[in-house]
């Protein structure tokens, strides 16, 4: 009997400790978000208190002076375009490289694999120059085009592996029925890979959203900035005015956190798929 009570107490303790650890983990983010709803003086005197009034002035100020809607639009647009283009192109590429398994395909896949380990900072200067020479610097579209090949190798690799589990018989019977190679891919194979696609979509959205180095190099003018670069210049210029600084952080954290909460299932599978790349 006694050991049962002991076990029960131990279990309750573990539950409580787990809860405490979880809350401690999100504490810094929580503190930043609640302080965005306080006037500057309250931030200094009552940092950890829950706001006693719903103070919106700093958020509204940042919203206007950071040009939040434009910045958000730039970021979301980049995410959508990069994700769609990178996913479609890499699915096509990975599919063909897997199906036509000859020597040149093998060379291509190894090259793409090798590029995944290159840290971006080591090629940022030449990439910047290539983009500049193509007349695409400080241009949102140029930025998006540059991101596609940086992300595509990973997706090609994942699709390349996944296509092997899709039976060829489906494609062969469709070809006999007179289906062209593009319809075979887009109407039969691509829909079959939707679980992989969902994971990659979530992962790439996160990558674009959090990208800092490339937009800081390419997108210099204010109306072309994305969230990370806008927050960087905003926070740096309001270094001691916490109210404005953390309001900008809050505006950067909110959208991606909502996205995370709704897409949590795909986050997990996407992250694990990301690890297998090794």
């Amino acid at each position: 009997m006694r050991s049962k009570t002991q076990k029960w107490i131990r279990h309750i303790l573990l539950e409580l400790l787990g809860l405490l650890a979880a809350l401690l983990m999100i504490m810094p983010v929580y503190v930043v978000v609640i302080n965005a709803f306080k006037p500057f003086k309250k931030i200094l005197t009552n940092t950890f208190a829950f706001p006693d009034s719903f103070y919106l002035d700093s958020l509204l100020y940042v919203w206007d002076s950071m040009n939040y809607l434009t910045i958000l639009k730039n970021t979301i647009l980049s995410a959508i375009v990069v994700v769609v283009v990178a996913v479609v192109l890499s699915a096509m590429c990975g599919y063909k490289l897997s199906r036509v398994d000859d020597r040149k395909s093998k060379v291509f896949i190894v090259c793409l694999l090798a590029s995944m380990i290159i840290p971006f900072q080591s090629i940022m200067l030449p990439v910047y120059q290539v983009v500049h020479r193509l007349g695409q610097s400080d241009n949102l579209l140029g930025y998006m085009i540059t991101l596609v090949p940086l992300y595509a190798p990973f997706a090609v690799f994942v699709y390349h592996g996944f296509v092997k589990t899709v039976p060829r018989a489906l494609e062969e019977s469709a070809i006999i029925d007179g289906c062209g190679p593009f319809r075979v891919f887009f109407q039969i194979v691509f829909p079959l890979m939707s679980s992989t696609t969902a994971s990659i979509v979530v992962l790439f959205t996160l990558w674009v959203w959090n990208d800092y180095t490339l937009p800081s190099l390419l997108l210099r003018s204010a109306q072309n900035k994305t969230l990370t670069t806008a927050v960087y210049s905003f926070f740096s210029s309001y270094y001691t005015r916490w109210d404005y600084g953390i309001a900008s952080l809050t505006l950067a954290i909110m959208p991606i956190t909502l996205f995370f909460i709704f897409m949590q299932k795909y986050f997990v599978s996407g992250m694990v798929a990301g690890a297998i790349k090794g």
Partner: protein
Amino acid sequence: MKEKKYVYWVFVLPVLALYIIYFIIPVGMCAYYSLLDWNGVNKSPTFIGINNYIRLFQDKDYFQAMWFSARYAIFSVILGNVLAIFVALWVNSKLRVRNMMRTCFFLPNIISGIVVGFVWVFIFNQGTKALYSAIPIGLFQIKWLSDPTNAFYAILMVSLWQSVGYYMLIYLSGLNSIDAAYQEAAAIDGANGLARFRYITLPLLMPSITINLFMSTANAFRLFDMNVSLTNGGPGKSTVALALDVYTELFSNSKMGYGSAKAMILLLIVMIITLFQVGYTKKREVDL
């Protein structure tokens, strides 16, 4: 039923062409630049062979950056993985709060390194100040960002805070693939919790450990965003990591040749480590 040849290229070429323009050519350019003495503006840079690389060996600041990155890599890899295994085991137990734990531990990982750095700039300044006025103990008086030694631990701590949830997920998927029958059999044979962990869980978790070890090592050498926003290399140059060092050399000092040599070294370090990873993982796959 042989497919026409152009179909293959229509599928493969878009990615391949972009890849060549934005990857292969830049790596070649970087290798070439590293042999030049060039300020980026000069139309006719001087070719100086491997002099940039020789200069690297005499550069004290570069050694400091290398030492910072190496130290950071060792600490973050070991602590990150130990913590992540611990958290994964904890989350994997039959607790009611496990879903909440998983979500909360993973949440910092979805926020960009730039924002994470600034969140902690606020916590390290205003947060600790408020904590000290509530509970006046020495712990809350530590100047995390203005002291070189502490700034290293600040970066380490924040990066652990951000990355542990990610490594936890990998370990969780590894733990889930372990058949519960092994644990039960060992429990019946009288093995206690620690022994079961040491002789069953840990060996079967090896594939996940391998992946995480090398991934965290490569990530450690890629440290950049948080380095920029949390300390920007300061105080002095005490917390400049290799990637930030490359960035400063290229875009602040305009030393394109010398910066490119540093970039090539960074590339080689990450490549060598990752090649070890691939080789090692492949070998393990045969063993299992």
